[in-house]
């Protein structure tokens, strides 16, 4: 392989760009599988691989720097993994070498791109974004910077509506800093959590002491002699602060895909097939940078999670060393702590059509939502004080196991994975003894296998281009999701009811919809959809066990209790098994459960909600006054 590369150029068998967890895992695993290959990591980062999710614990001083190391110190040397500290700038895929900064070339036989992600940050036009004290939290240095600053901060503004933002808010609260948290949307993590779950998270954060401002954006940052002094919001409010933390999400670093002489498909990440191959031969991508197909929906998206990066690194190593991978990438899985709550999402919970049964439960200070087809689980969302056996639930979905016997315990959050799986083993052993047959793989697993076979690449020689040429690759941007709800023929619906059959998505049509947003919104509204494309709760498809229907009240303009009605009015004491919720009024797709309106920026913590009933109506001459009066009350609280 290396004879393609000029003699005077350095080269290695396996070149890995990036020493994040995906990169290093791939290197270590490649070394294990191929002890005689030359493995090189090229990275810009000047510190060894760290446990990036543990940076939150580092931020609050629970850990020191040494405890952040992902692998014991010196692993690279011990494993003969050569680390080059340089920036990779271009890929010359035809001649199989990359150029490093300064023009130096470096040859490869197999290349892995694991460049990870970079913080999206504030829009470049936002006034004041360069003041000292405006930070993004992404790398180790950002957290070191944060820890140095904490001493002189009394108030901070956190911008962004994701899990990272919540962790940042909680870290700041831990240090006794008053936190204003600005969320652009009216719910938290709208693509992963439904409204009750989002309400629950936001309530818990408010109870922890943060001020939550939904549907609020920063219009500008005010500074005083170079330092941050406050943030101006779109509600003409000035929030004084000494620190602005920007947690507006991350973007895959795809610059190498742009600087490649062959066309490397990328959108919000480098598009890879189920074996992490990019559209260019001998180049793989893993970690936050790789956009992977969700086997349930067929949409490509990066999976920016620790476990995903580790398993992708291992898989890439197997493929680069020529062995066959033992694991599958599987379905999306995300488990994390959101303040005092543990959140778990497995598979797809919200994206289904109403041909799928949805079960929700909100007992025991927690919330669970399940998407079920027949007796197979396809999506699971859990939010509560403790985390269920998250990997076991992933396994149940991936293997398509019947949940008939465990439906209730899954729904109630009392599922005991260990006894379930040990019983399963016993059953299959019994079956083997009595029938004399080996256990057969479940049908769903077979179906997934069929998908994988169908999508598998032609054997070596006919390149990946073929795959990408013959099949339209769906884009990864959320707007294309609207396509889900455009399936109108029976055939389409049937196709869609089967989660592991991916229908080709008509890109042109989806683009047309995006361009024609207004028309689309109307169309959606006619069908009883909200403008975000989330199907409204429909009769008999959502079975709720304890969630009671909020009373319907006319939504008047700025009534004193406008944003609090769902809490102040007495709730019906009856538990219902099947809630019939009427569709939303045409053209106004608002959910009636826990509407978090524009006024809810003044939402008070749960414990003081009683007091706020006597609060004067929200007709203050200047809305910014509220911020200050609110603050005083908070102090006493």
């Amino acid at each position: 392989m290396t004879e393609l590369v000029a003699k005077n150029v350095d080269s290695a068998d396996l070149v890995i760009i990036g020493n994040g967890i995906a990169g290093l895992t791939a290197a270590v695993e490649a070394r294990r599988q191929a002890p005689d290959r030359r493995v090189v990591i090229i990275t810009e980062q000047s510190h060894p691989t760290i446990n990036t999710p543990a940076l939150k614990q580092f931020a609050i001083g629970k850990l020191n720097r040494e405890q952040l190391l992902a692998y014991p110190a010196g692993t690279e040397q011990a494993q003969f993994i050569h680390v080059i500290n340089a920036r990779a700038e271009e890929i010359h895929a035809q001649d199989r070498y990359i150029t490093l900064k300064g023009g130096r070339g470096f040859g490869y036989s197999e290349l892995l791109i694991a460049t990870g992600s970079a913080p999206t940050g504030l829009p470049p036009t936002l006034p004041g974004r360069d003041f000292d004290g405006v930070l993004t939290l992404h790398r180790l240095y950002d957290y070191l910077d944060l820890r140095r600053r904490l001493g002189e901060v009394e108030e901070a503004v956190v911008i962004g509506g994701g899990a990272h933002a919540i962790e940042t808010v909680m870290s700041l609260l831990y240090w006794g800093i008053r936190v204003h948290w600005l969320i652009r949307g009216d719910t938290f993590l709208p693509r992963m959590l439904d409204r009750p779950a989002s309400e629950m998270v936001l309530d818990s954060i408010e109870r922890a002491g943060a001020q939550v401002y939904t549907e609020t954006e920063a219009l500008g940052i005010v500074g005083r002699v170079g330092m941050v002094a406050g943030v101006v919001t779109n509600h003409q409010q000035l929030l004084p602060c000494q620190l602005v933390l920007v947690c507006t999400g991350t973007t895959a670093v795809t610059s190498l895909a742009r600087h490649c002489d062959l066309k490397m498909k990328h959108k919000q990440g480098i598009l890879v097939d189920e074996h992490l191959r990019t559209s260019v031969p001998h180049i793989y991508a893993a970690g936050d940078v790789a956009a992977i197909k969700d086997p349930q929906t067929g949409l490509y998206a990066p999976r920016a999670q620790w476990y995903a990066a580790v398993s992708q690194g291992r898989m890439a190593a197997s493929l680069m060393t020529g062995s066959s991978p033992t694991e599958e990438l599987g379905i999306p899985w995300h488990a994390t702590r959101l303040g005092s709550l543990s959140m778990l999402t497995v598979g797809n919970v919200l994206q289904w059509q109403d041909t799928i049964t949805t079960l929700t439960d909100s007992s025991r200070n927690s919330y669970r939502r399940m998407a079920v087809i027949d007796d197979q689980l396809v999506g699971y969302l859990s939010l509560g004080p403790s985390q269920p056996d998250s990997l076991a639930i992933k396994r149940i979905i991936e293997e398509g196991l019947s949940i008939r016997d465990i439906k209730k315990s899954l729904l109630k959050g009392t599922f005991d994975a260990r006894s379930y799986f040990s019983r399963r083993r016993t059953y299959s052993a019994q079956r083997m003894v009595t029938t004399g047959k080996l256990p057969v793989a479940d049908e769903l697993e077979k179906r997934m296998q069929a998908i994988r076979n169908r999508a598998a690449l032609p054997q070596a020689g006919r390149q990946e281009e073929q795959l990408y040429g013959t099949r339209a690759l769906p884009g990864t941007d959320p707007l294309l999701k609207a396509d889900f709800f455009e399936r109108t023929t029976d055939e389409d619906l049937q196709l869609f009811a089967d989660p592991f059959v991916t229908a080709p998505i008509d890109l042109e049509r989806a683009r047309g919809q995006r361009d024609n947003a207004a028309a689309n919104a109307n169309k959606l509204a006619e069908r009883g959809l909200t403008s975000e494309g989330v199907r409204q709760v429909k009769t008999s498809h959502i079975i709720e066990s304890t969630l009671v229907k909020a009373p319907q009240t006319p939504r008047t303009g700025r009534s004193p209790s406008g944003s609090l009605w769902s809490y102040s009015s007495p709730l019906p004491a009856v538990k219902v098994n099947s809630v019939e919720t009427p569709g939303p009024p045409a053209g106004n797709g608002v959910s009636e459960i826990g509407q978090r309106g524009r006024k809810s920026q003044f939402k008070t913590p749960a414990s003081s909600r009683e007091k706020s009933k006597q609060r004067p109506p929200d007709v203050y001459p200047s809305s910014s006054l509220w911020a200050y009066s609110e603050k005083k009350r908070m102090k006493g609280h």
Partner: protein
Amino acid sequence: MLRAGLSKHGKKAVSLHKTGPQVAQELLACIGCNECLLACPALDEAITIDVLNRETYSGPISTPVAHFARSCFQCGACVAPCPVGLSREAMMMWLKVRLLRSGWEKS
């Protein structure tokens, strides 16, 4: 007749066992936040999570990790704090079994 998961006194028996592949998978999913070690009442050694994870599944077991594995009494305090929902106590069980098999206890 005993029902699975119930002891003869009717109490819910907690199975400490997980299979090797399960333990391996959980070790890979560990994000290294150290919450389990911070919650541990038995930890008396300077152990970092990366070393513990490496030695739990395979390879030689170093002295501090062996000491820790012996002092662990499977109280389960490490399970609830895990943000990812992993069972450290099953991993410790695995480590203990490995320790026994390696004959470390005898020496």
